[in-house]
């Protein structure tokens, strides 16, 4: 299984794409805060795992894949949607890591200070998320 970094992909992302991601990320974060302030931590906590940034992310993936095929003179609509599907499958592995992150925050926040708790939780996300991806890839 070949893993690599492709920094050329960054050239395909326009300044408008970066701005829309930033604004979307900021808005979802503010919305999650307002919900927690209004309805308390039980409801608010649900929205810490709200997939609000997935739709624009998948749209961008589809757009890039279609552009790539168009450069070769082909219609890339189906290919673009298949690429978005693959990314969503990866997100499902990441969301299993998200469950581990949340469990670690729940159990560690009352025992350890904030930064060690966040480090444990982030480590849990990394290990579970990437392990889930690796296991799924081998199935």
């Amino acid at each position, binding site marked *: 299984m070949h893993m690599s970094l492709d920094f050329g992909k960054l050239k395909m992302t326009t300044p408008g794409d970066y701005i829309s991601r930033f604004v979307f990320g900021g808005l979802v974060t503010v919305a999650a805060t307002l919900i927690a302030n209004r309805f308390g931590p039980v409801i608010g906590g649900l929205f810490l795992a709200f997939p609000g940034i997935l739709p624009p992310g998948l749209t961008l993936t589809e757009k890039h894949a279609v552009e790539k095929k168009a450069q070769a003179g082909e219609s890339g609509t189906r290919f673009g949607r298949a690429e978005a599907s693959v990314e969503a499958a990866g997100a499902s592995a990441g969301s299993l890591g998200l469950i581990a992150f949340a469990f670690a925050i729940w*159990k560690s926040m009352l025992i350890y200070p904030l930064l060690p708790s966040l480090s444990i939780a982030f480590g849990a996300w990394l290990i579970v998320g990437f392990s889930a991806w690796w296991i799924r890839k081998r199935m």
Partner: protein
Amino acid sequence: MDLLLRFVIGGSVVSLFSIWGDVLKPKSLGGVFAGAPTIALATILLTAHKEGAHFVAIEGRSMMGGAVAFFAYACVVSFTLMRFKPSALKCASLAMPVWAAVAFAIWAFWLR
């Protein structure tokens, strides 16, 4: 001021994880970053400072429910895109009630 700070931190964290997701190959590996705890990382520091550790721990417990719902949502989106090939934006937006239904079912049966 607090909300503005959260907006900037949230936007920055989401952008950073998105860039990692873009550059990682294969695409499915990059997709793992779409399930990163971006909103939590952006808010927990400020929330812990303002509301205390107990508040954040309760949020963490609920976040488990939201994350299970995220898993169900991502599976539905991935399957639908692969099987029926609708546009990504339409599919991911129209599937959002899956997240809401699973999250609030967990809230009703476990968290409440």
